[in-house]
């Protein structure tokens, strides 16, 4: 029984630490957040939640927004569309938030599009899928901070073109992340004069991808592009290394974690990926507009959580800071917040890149937000 009591105590403490202590003074501004804190997409939701909690503390310590503290109400969507719809209803109807940031995945974000448009409340999604913000005229209230998948693909293809690679083998994981990557890889190939010699798939928990790599090699490809997140990209890297493929391996932007280099060890040497500048901030020129904020965010996050924030935490940073800046400038008015984000977030440095929102683009990033990065001696190196 003692074990249960301890467990109970742990849950209570966790619950308390999540509820927000309001700093006294003016009435707080409420912002909703829906993240996949648990469930299969929890690798996204956890750094996002951590980031938001950290930023809320920092903002309130610095006096909040014009004297008003902010209160970010975080809901766990359990990586489930239905749960995120329920969470949004709660945030909109009972908490009466000014804006919502998140959800973490494309599917969940799509489920919220009609709800947010009806509620006339801005949503700044932390998911990458293009349909979240396109077509823009039907996404009046919807924004997103991660770059488009096709921007990542464009970065890879442009680099390949410059290196004379014209025939590639692609392998994608059979999840939403892999599906959208596969689609972008197929659609953009002709534009860059690239042919896809082999188009392979694998499951998110598979333990060996030698078969797919062997097929790609037999098909006569000049390079492999792997599109996945989590452990499978490490397994692919190890298999690629063991098979001595004699061709470069390109990973998606999901590769952007030091953890992956650690796990793959020497097999990771030479792997190329288009990554946001968050993981390579220390390699940027000092005058780069993103450098100062990336340095502060990385250092603060690592000091607080003893782990690196990663690209995904950065999406939450950008989403929240955009909303916070809008409230600071135009006050607690949903329509004005929306207009501010659409028109005034221009040359705005965030963790994901330099944002240029407009009435035609509710994401504001293109392939220039990414750097081609190669793994060299266990560290990242920016390719010119």
């Amino acid at each position: 029984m003692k074990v249960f009591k301890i467990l109970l105590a742990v849950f209570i403490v966790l619950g308390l630490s999540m509820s927000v202590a309001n700093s006294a003074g003016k009435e707080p501004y409420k912002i909703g957040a829906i993240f996949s804190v648990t469930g299969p997409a929890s690798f996204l939701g956890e750094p996002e939640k951590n980031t938001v909690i950290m930023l809320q503390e920092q903002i309130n310590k610095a006096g909040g927004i014009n004297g008003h503290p902010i209160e970010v109400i975080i809901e766990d969507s359990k990586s489930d569309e239905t749960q995120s719809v329920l969470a949004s209803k709660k945030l909109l109807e009972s908490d009466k938030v000014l804006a919502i940031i998140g959800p973490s995945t494309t599917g969940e974000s799509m489920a919220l599009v009609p709800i947010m448009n009806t509620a006339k409340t801005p949503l700044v999604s932390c998911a990458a899928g293009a349909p979240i913000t396109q077509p823009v005229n039907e996404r009046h209230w919807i924004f997103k901070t991660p770059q488009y998948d096709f921007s990542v693909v464009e970065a890879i293809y442009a680099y390949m073109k410059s290196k004379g690679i014209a025939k590639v083998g692609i392998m994608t994981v059979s999840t939403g992340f892999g599906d959208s990557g596969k689609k972008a890889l197929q659609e953009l190939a002709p534009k860059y004069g690239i042919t896809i010699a082999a188009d392979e798939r694998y499951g998110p928990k598979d333990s060996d991808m030698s078969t797919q790599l062997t097929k790609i090699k037999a098909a006569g490809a000049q390079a492999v592009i792997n599109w996945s997140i989590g452990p499978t990209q490490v397994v692919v890297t190890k298999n690629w290394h063991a098979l001595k493929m004699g061709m470069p391996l390109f990973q998606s932007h999901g590769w952007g974690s030091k953890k992956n280099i650690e796990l793959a060890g020497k097999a990771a040497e030479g792997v190329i990926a288009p990554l946001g500048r968050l993981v390579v901030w220390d390699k940027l020129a000092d005058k780069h507009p993103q450098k100062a904020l990336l340095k502060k965010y990385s250092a603060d996050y690592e000091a607080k959580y003893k782990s690196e924030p990663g690209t995904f935490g950065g999406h939450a940073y950008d989403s929240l800071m955009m909303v916070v800046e809008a409230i600071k400038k135009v006050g607690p008015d949903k329509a004005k917040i929306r207009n501010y984000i659409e028109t005034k977030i221009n040359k705005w440095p965030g963790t994901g890149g330099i944002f240029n929102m407009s009435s035609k683009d509710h994401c504001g990033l293109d392939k220039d937000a990414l750097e081609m990065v190669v793994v060299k001696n266990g560290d990242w190196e920016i390719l010119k």
Partner: protein
Amino acid sequence: MFTVFLQFLFSGLTTGAVYALVGLGFNIIYNATSIINLAQGEFVVVGGLLMWLFSESFKLPFLVSAVLTILVSGLLALLMERLTIKPLPKTDLLLMIMITVAVSILLRGLLMFKFGKNPYVYPPFTEGEPFIIAGAVIQQQTLWVIGITFSCIILIYLFFNRTLIGKAMRACAVNPTAAMLVGIDVEKMIMLSFVLSAMVGAIGGIAVTPISLMEYDKGPMLAVKGFCAAIMGGLGRGRGSVAGGFIIGILESMTAGYIHSGLKDAVALLILLAILFFKPAGIFGSKTALQMRRF
């Protein structure tokens, strides 16, 4: 062309060996209790993660870490059995199976709290370049996994067929009442079967983590594939589950290689269905055993 075929085969052996080891664990508990322990996949994860904890985090020597991992996993299964299975009325098999599902969810939650959501890995048992046979590459660790799988099956076969305790455990599954009447401590045998299967699961986890990495939520996938392996070979037959595991692994790899990688899970499961349709007892199972099955 032969090289490519061989590479597909090696890839299939790698995944198949993992399925086989999980399938073996299912069989041990089934043989003693005629229930399916759906937390079996979690014990593989426990094995891999504890091994990482002992060898990488506490920096203990390899063998010490392995023994500790296996013992702790066994202890965990002992607790599981004492706290969740023993208090139940023995007649309700379905209820017991549901309980194992609950335990698997609980274990996954605890693992997430302790280890977080990141994958873990440690170096393979023997360092060095992979072997190259006729141009195809096979990693040293794969050979370790296959070797360990076969050692486990031999030991388990000897245990169930040559030792008194092993035979007593099998008697409990066939007819617990009769087993009790001849003086077998049925409850103790059930407890033992849980401990044993968790240990086999943990051994599997220790062996495969250097190849496939381990993270807290890998259990369900392993359980599904291992269960397929056990069913395909014939529930309760140790060598059946090993054959089943390798067949599924190789089928997946060949499908991915010669048809399309997107279809590999579907084709493997279709063949499983076909086998069960024409030979419901599985490849090695007997019809009589199937009729006597309570579940």
